[in-house]
């Protein structure tokens, strides 16, 4: 009985190095003596699409495409791509996802408020599917090492434990394929990735310095005329006027209490309250 063919899916957006990472994984697997087939779709990023790379390895691989629900591991370089490709992972498989979020233009439903349909970063989305989730903050780790562009190597480090090949092969593949002059930093990033894989990553981004919780925005709809001045001046894009001309709070979590909307509201319709105070429900 031949060893079963295993699969790996790499997903990201244009410019993150998904293709190079796919080549490194394939090279490392070849060095370890596997039969490897790889396939990728690229060039789509400029049209708002994703970039992905399928890799299958084993004794004898017939097709380069990983069937759905069969991959050992999904390596996502971006949060939404992790969600997009999670159906390819087999039950009990693993997801390595970068916490980085890159919001595509297509997710911006309202260019004025920048309200998006981008999903929230929540590891429970994977736990529900009985998957092992490894969330890595690859961009920060790579930045600490001195080159944010080595984030891909950090992710490969986190992925390496699931492929069952010796670390020598990984490092040899990285050394031979990364751009000349960046071998050292990429190897350092790879080793860092091997270690941060197990670490629990805080999911919620740290609030900005001095931010003591969102202020509360109270809108008096009987006085508001929907002139849209407030939503234009809000530096945090907290407010938006909908198609019916009604002003809504679309981003209540980030109000810093700068009071610009309150001061520039010609209709006295906005009140900003400090985080601690109780707010009477807005008049409808």
């Amino acid at each position, binding site marked *: 009985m031949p060893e079963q063919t295993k699969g790996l899916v790499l997903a990201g957006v244009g410019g993150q190095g998904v293709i190079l990472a796919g080549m490194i994984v394939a090279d490392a697997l070849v060095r370890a003596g596997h039969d490897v087939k790889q396939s990728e779709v690229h060039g789509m990023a400029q049209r708002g699409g994703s970039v992905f790379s399928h890799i299958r390895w084993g004794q004898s691989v017939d097709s380069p495409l990983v069937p759905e629900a069969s991959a050992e591991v999904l390596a996502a370089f971006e949060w939404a791509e992790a969600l997009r490709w999670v159906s390819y992972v087999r039950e009990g498989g693993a997801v390595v996802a970068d916490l980085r979020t890159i919001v595509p233009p297509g997710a911006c439903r309202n260019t004025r408020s920048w309200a998006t349909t981008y999903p929230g970063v929540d590891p429970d989305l994977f736990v529900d599917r009985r998957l092992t989730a490894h969330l890595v903050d690859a961009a920060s780790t790579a930045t600490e090492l001195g080159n944010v562009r080595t984030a891909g190597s950090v992710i490969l480090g986190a992925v390496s434990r699931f492929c069952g090949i010796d670390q020598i092969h990984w490092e040899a593949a990285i050394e031979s394929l990364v751009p000349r002059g960046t071998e050292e930093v990429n190897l350092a990033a790879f080793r860092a990735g091997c270690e941060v894989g197990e670490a629990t990553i805080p999911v919620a981004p740290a609030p900005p310095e001095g931010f003591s919780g969102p202020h509360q925005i109270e809108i008096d709809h*009987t*006085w508001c*005329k929907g*002139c849209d*001045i407030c939503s234009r*001046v809000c530096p945090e894009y907290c407010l938006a006027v909908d198609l019916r001309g009604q002003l809504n709070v679309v981003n209540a979590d980030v109000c810093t209490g700068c009071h610009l909307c309150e001061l520039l*509201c*010609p209709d*006295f319709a906005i*009140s900003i309250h400090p985080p601690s105070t109780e707010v009477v429900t807005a008049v409808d």
Partner: protein
Amino acid sequence: MNDVKKYLREWAMPHVLCPGCAHGIVLRSFLEAVDQLQLAQDQVAMVAGIGCSSRLAGYADFCTLHGTHGRAPAFATGLKLARPELDVVVVTGDGDGLAIGGNHLIHAARRNIDITVLLLNNSIYGMTGGQVAPTSPEGTVASTTPSGNTEPPFDPCQLLLGAGASYVARVLAATPTEMTKVMADAILHPGFAFIEVVADCPEYFGRYNKAGGGAEMLTQLAGRDTGVAVQLADKRFVNHIPSSETAPGLQTGVLRRETRPVFSGVRGGGDHGA
């Protein structure tokens, strides 16, 4: 920020002004100034003439007087002479104060009577239907100048400097904190204090001249600020200002502050700003 709604006649709200009209911002800044100075509500008298700007007096819960067109400085002069303990504030517009009531305004300034005049300059007659005003820039399309205004406009501050006002300032409706500061300063000034508040009229000026709605007009206005304090320069609000070729800069801030005898109606009875 203080809750200035206590100074509003809430039963009269929402006010009649159009969406995007900056006059409401001016009213708020004035109420903030009154709040900062801790003036009692029955110690402040707002006197107004006719026009969009003059409507503001109706929403402020002070002693208010809604007079005839252009005559607000005349009413205010009488009120101040009869009740010198009041802080008299005139709210007027560019049409009300400079065309119909220009005479009253310059003579009040000449006398140096201790009142404060807020002149809300939106460059057009709003309430009566978008006619060209003495402050409309050349080329302004208005209901009375459908092919563009051919007359040069007034500079209200220069006019009042010439008339001898002892305090002259210009502020923009797009910079409310600056506006509050100057208004508080002007109320405390002994003698005639004149503030030109450059405001917008999205409904007539903006619509006829394709200048956009209230948000666009205020954004453009903030970009014309060449004065002492650019409140919002680091905000998104002013980042995408078009070049100032179409909209020349406006000198904002206090343009003159001097102390000279205040008119009290009695010969030799003027105090020197004590």
